[in-house]
C-alpha cells in the first residue's frame, strides 16, 4: 500500500530525514516510533505530499506520488498533529469542506459526513461550532476530517497529544475499527504503549533514520533481551558515567537500567572502579522501551523531553 525508497529531506545543511526505506502492506497498522525531532513528522509530511523530498520516492497504492500526485493523494487521509480544523465552523461544515477537497459531492458527501461523525462519536454535537468542543472532541473531529473521503491509507501524526485517557481510548477504538475494516494505517507516536497497543509492526526512528523495523515481538526478541536493572549504592552519577562506556544506560533515581554492548562483566567492573557498589541486580523482561534503549543509546522520554 505504501512504499518509501531512499526517502530523505534536508533543510539547508541539516539532514532531517536520511534515506528511509519502508513498505506497508494493505490493511496493516505500522507505527513510527521515535522521540520528538526523530524525523517522524517530516517523513509523514513527505508521504502526504506536504513537503517535497530532497531525495527518494513515495508510492501510494502503486501510484508514484511525484508523478501522479493527485491520484496518489486521493488514496490518502492525513490526521495532522495540530488540531487542523476550523474552530468557528461546526463539525459538519468542517467535514463538508474537507470532503469537498476530495471530490465528494451531494448525497455521498452527506452520507460520509454522517458516518464519520458516528464513528468518532460526535453526531450529537455536529451542528455546534468546534470552538465549544473539549480538547478530546476536537481531536476526534481531527480524525474524522482525515477519514471523511474513505481513504485507503490513513496517516495519523501523534493523534493523542494532549488528550484525556477517555478520549485516547476512544481514538484507539476508532483506529482498531478502521484496521478491522481493512484500512491501512501509519501511526506516529512517541508513546511506547500506544504503538504496543495498536501496531502490527513498528519502525523505530532516531535522528532521521529507521534504526529497526519489525513486529513488536521481533524487536523485543532481537533488541531487548539483555536488559538489566542495577541498584547502585554510593555515587550514582559516577556509576552511570562509568557504565555508559560499556552499555546503553538509563537512570531512574538510584537504579540504572543498562543494556550492555557486549557483556555485563565490564559494566560491573566500571561501576565498581568508579567507587560505587551494586546493591541488587535484576534481569528485566524485555519490552519495546528496552529495545529502543538498546537501539538508540537513550531513552525515548529523554529525547522527547529534551526536544520539548
Amino acid at each position, binding site marked *: 500500500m505504501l512504499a518509501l525508497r531512499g526517502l530523505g529531506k534536508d533543510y539547508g545543511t541539516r539532514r532531517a530525514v536520511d534515506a528511509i526505506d519502508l513498505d506497508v502492506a494493505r490493511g496493516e497498522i505500522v507505527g513510527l516510533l521515535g522521540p520528538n525531532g526523530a524525523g517522524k513528522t517530516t517523513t509523514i*509530511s513527505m508521504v*502526504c*505530499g*506536504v*513537503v*517535497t523530498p530532497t531525495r527518494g520516492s513515495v508510492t501510494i497504492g502503486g501510484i508514484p506520488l511525484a508523478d501522479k*500526485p*493527485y*491520484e496518489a*493523494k*486521493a488514496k*490518502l487521509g*492525513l490526521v*495532522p*498533529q*495540530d*488540531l*487542523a*480544523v*476550523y*474552530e468557528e465552523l461546526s463539525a459538519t461544515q468542517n467535514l463538508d469542506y*474537507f470532503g469537498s*477537497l*476530495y*471530490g465528494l459531492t451531494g448525497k455521498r458527501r452527506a452520507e460520509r459526513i454522517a458516518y464519520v461523525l458516528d464513528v468518532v462519536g460526535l453526531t450529537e454535537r455536529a451542528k455546534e461550532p468546534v470552538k465549544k468542543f473539549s480538547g478530546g472532541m476536537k481531536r476526534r473531529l481531527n480524525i474524522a*476530517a*482525515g477519514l471523511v473521503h474513505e481513504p485507503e491509507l490513513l496517516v495519523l501524526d501523534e493523534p493523542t497529544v494532549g488528550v484525556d485517557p477517555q478520549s485516547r481510548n476512544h481514538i484507539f477504538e476508532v483506529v482498531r475499527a478502521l484496521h478491522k475494516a481493512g484500512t491501512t494505517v501509519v501511526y506516529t507516536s512517541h508513546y511506547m504503549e500506544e504503538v504496543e497497543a495498536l501496531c502490527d509492526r513498528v519502525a523505530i526512528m532516531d535522528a532521521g533514520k529507521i534504526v529497526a523495523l519489525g513486529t513488536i515481538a521481533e524487536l523485543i526478541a532481537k533488541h531487548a533481551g539483555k536488559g538489566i536493572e542495577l541498584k547502585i549504592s554510593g555515587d550514582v552519577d559516577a556509576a552511570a558515567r562509568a557504565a555508559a562506556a560499556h552499555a546503553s544506560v538509563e537512570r531512574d533515581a538510584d537504579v540504572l537500567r543498562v543494556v550492555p554492548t557486549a557483556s555485563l562483566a565490564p559494566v560491573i567492573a566500571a561501576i565498581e572502579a568508579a567507587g560505587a557498589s551494586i546493591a541488587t541486580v535484576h534481569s528485566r523482561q524485555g519490552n519495546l522501551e528496552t529495545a529502543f534503549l538498546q537501539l538508540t543509546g537513550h531513552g525515548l522520554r529523554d529525547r522527547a523531553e529534551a526536544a520539548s
Partner: protein
Amino acid sequence: MIGPTIRKDIWLLLRDRGRLLMLFVMPLAFIVVFGSIFKFGPDRGKPRPIAIWHAPGDARGEAIAKAIADTPGFAPDPKDSADAVRRAVAAEDVRAGIVVPADFDPVQGRPIELVIDLGEQVQVRGPLQGALTGAVMRALSPLPTGKLPPLVEAKSPPGLAKPLENVSAFQVTVPGNGVLFGFFIAMTVAMTFASERHSGTWRRLLAAPVPRWRALIGKLVPYYLIGVIQLAVLFGFGGLFGMQVAGSFAALVLLSLALVACSIGFGLLVSSFGWTEKQLGSTVPVMMLVMGLIGGCMFPRLLMPPFMQKVGLMVPHSWALDGYYAVLVRQGTSVADIAPQLGALTAFALGFALLGLWRFKFE
C-alpha cells in the same frame, strides 16, 4: 523581583518588531509627512510660481505682479500671452495663473481671470484662490467705495474637464476612506494564511488532491469579492449622502476592481513574509496607515511639497485617489481618461502578486 521583570519586558519589547514599528516608525512617518505639508511658507521652501500675463506697460498688471512677488510663498512667472498662462495651468506646470486683460474693467464685466483648476479639491484650491485674490485687491487698492462686481473671476483652463457644481465633502471623504480601509483587506488575507498555517489546516489542504495554485486562488477569491462588496457598500453609502459620479460609472467600477486586486496582491505579498498573526497584527496596520498617509488618504497630496507628492506616487493609494477624484468630480471622465491610474494600479497588483508568489512558501 522588579529588576528581572523590567529586564524580561525589555527583552520582549526589543523582540517585538511590530510594536517598535508602531512606537517609533509610525510617529516619525506622520511627523515627516505632516511637517512637510506645512513646509510651504516664507523662507522655508521654494516659492510657488504663479503664471501671469498682462499687456506690456499695463501699470495695473505690473502692480499685481509685484503684489504676487511680495506675497510670501509666491513668485510671479511671466508668460507671453493669456493662452500661455492657461496652457501652463492645464499642463500642471503651475498651480494657478493670473490674466489681466488689457481692457480690464470689472464694472463693464471684464474682470481679471484667475486661471485655476476648479475641479481641484477645495482644500487645495481654496487657500490659493484666496491668497491670489487678496494679492490682486492689494495691488489695486484703494478700491472705489460702493458695491463693485467681482474683480477676479476664477476659471478652469480649456482642456480640463468641468467639475461638478456644489461638490459635497463626500466626493472626497468616501474615496479617501474607501482606499484607506479598502486596503485593510490585505491584512485579512495575510491573517488567514497565518491562521491556516498555525492551525495545521494548510497542511491538510496541501495533503488533499488539489493543485497548489487552485488552493491559492480558492483562498484569495473570497477576499477579492469581499473587497469589492466593501467598496460597493462604501460608495453606495456615499451616494445616500449626496456623493455623485461625475464621470463614467464603468470607470468607477474598473478602478475599484483594480484597487481590490492591488489590496489582495499586497496581502499575498505580506503573507509570503511568513509572519505570525501577532506579528501581522502589530505591523501591517502601521504599514497601511503610513501608505494611506503618504498616498493622500488623510491629507490631500497636492497640499504636500513636490518631493512628497512624488513619494506618494510610490504607493497605489495615490493613483487610486487620483482616479476616483477624476471619476467622481470631473464631468465626462471616461475609462480612457483614467487609463494611467488603472495602468498603475494593475502594475502594482501584478507586482505585489508576482513578488508574493515568488516568495510564498507552500511548505
